[in-house]
């Protein structure tokens, strides 16, 4: 004889990720490692910005390079002789707390006081996955179109710092960087917005100051 039964499960996969993220943050706090998520679309300048920060910031820096195939970005960081972990996401469009937990465990955290976690180039999926970092920096470039910020409200709503990059070519691509900055402020009034060109170096000092202020 068989019977029909209803089984309550109530397992929220988002909550499960959040719990691991909280555990990650406790581990990072204990190790004294300030961690910055670096988010943004493909080609916005995330990797280039991290490379500049490695060279200009006076900290013991480590990097987790997340990508569909991570060896290319990881290779760019390794030449600075710092701790780097490449995280291949394969088919996945984002990092999640479980994936980075393993990378945190593999890093020599004692040798690091500032860790950048470069996410997969994507303005959509990483929104759903908190990693346990202390700060979220979103890099958006004018070449993506000046309506990019308003079209992706959730990622900008949660950001602590927004970098609007490649402003040296804004005119050439017909983008209004002021509009992008205003859109970010409209979505997130407390967010710091910095306009930059990693080619000319404009805005880099301000980005460093913003991260250091956040670390205090």
């Amino acid at each position: 004889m068989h019977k029909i039964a209803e089984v309550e499960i109530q397992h929220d996969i988002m909550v499960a990720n959040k719990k691991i993220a909280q555990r990650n943050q406790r581990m990072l706090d204990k190790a004294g490692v300030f961690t910055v998520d670096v988010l943004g679309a493909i080609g916005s300048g995330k990797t280039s910005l991290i490379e500049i920060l490695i060279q200009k910031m006076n900290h013991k820096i480590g990097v987790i390079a997340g990508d569909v195939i991570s060896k290319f970005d990881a290779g760019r960081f390794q030449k600075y002789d710092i701790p780097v972990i490449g995280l291949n996401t394969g088919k996945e469009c984002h990092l999640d707390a479980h994936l980075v937990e393993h990378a945190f465990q593999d890093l020599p955290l004692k040798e690091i006081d500032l860790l950048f976690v470069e996410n997969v180039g994507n303005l959509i999926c990483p929104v759903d996955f908190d990693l346990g970092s202390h700060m979220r920096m979103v890099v958006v470039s004018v070449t993506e179109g000046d309506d990019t910020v308003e079209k992706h409200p959730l990622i900008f709503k949660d950001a602590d710092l927004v970098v609007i990059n490649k402003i040296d070519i804004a005119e050439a691509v017909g983008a209004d960087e002021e509009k992008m900055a205003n859109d970010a402020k409209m979505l997130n009034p407390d967010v710091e917005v910095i306009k930059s060109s990693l080619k000319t170096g404009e805005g880099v000092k301000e980005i460093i100051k913003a991260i250091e202020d956040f670390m205090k």
Partner: protein
Amino acid sequence: MHELSMADAIVKTVLDAAEKNQAEEILEVTIEIGKLTMLNPEQLRFLLEVLTEDTLLEGADIIIEEIPVKIKCNNCDYTGSTNLDDSDHYLMIVKCPECDERNLEVITGQECNVKNIRIEKPE
């Protein structure tokens, strides 16, 4: 865009619960998806159907309940949703519909919850 990994996690959760409860067949599974998640219910349903082939879950009714967005305003204490249509649901997390305040908490709308299953099991 990350429906595949979420579908995979849902299938594992359901099969695990089915096994613990000695299910011989899973008739129905109910999943709650918040409207603020970046998950498309129809894509999720398609992937669940693909991933459940040759498992105990194959052929089960998949019920997806969408959870509306609810916010709490930290200025005027307004709690609830708005009359915005579906395409504008992001707007309500930007400012309070009552007082335009932008300091808000999201109460619901971020779920991907495996709520329950209906199974057939031995007496």
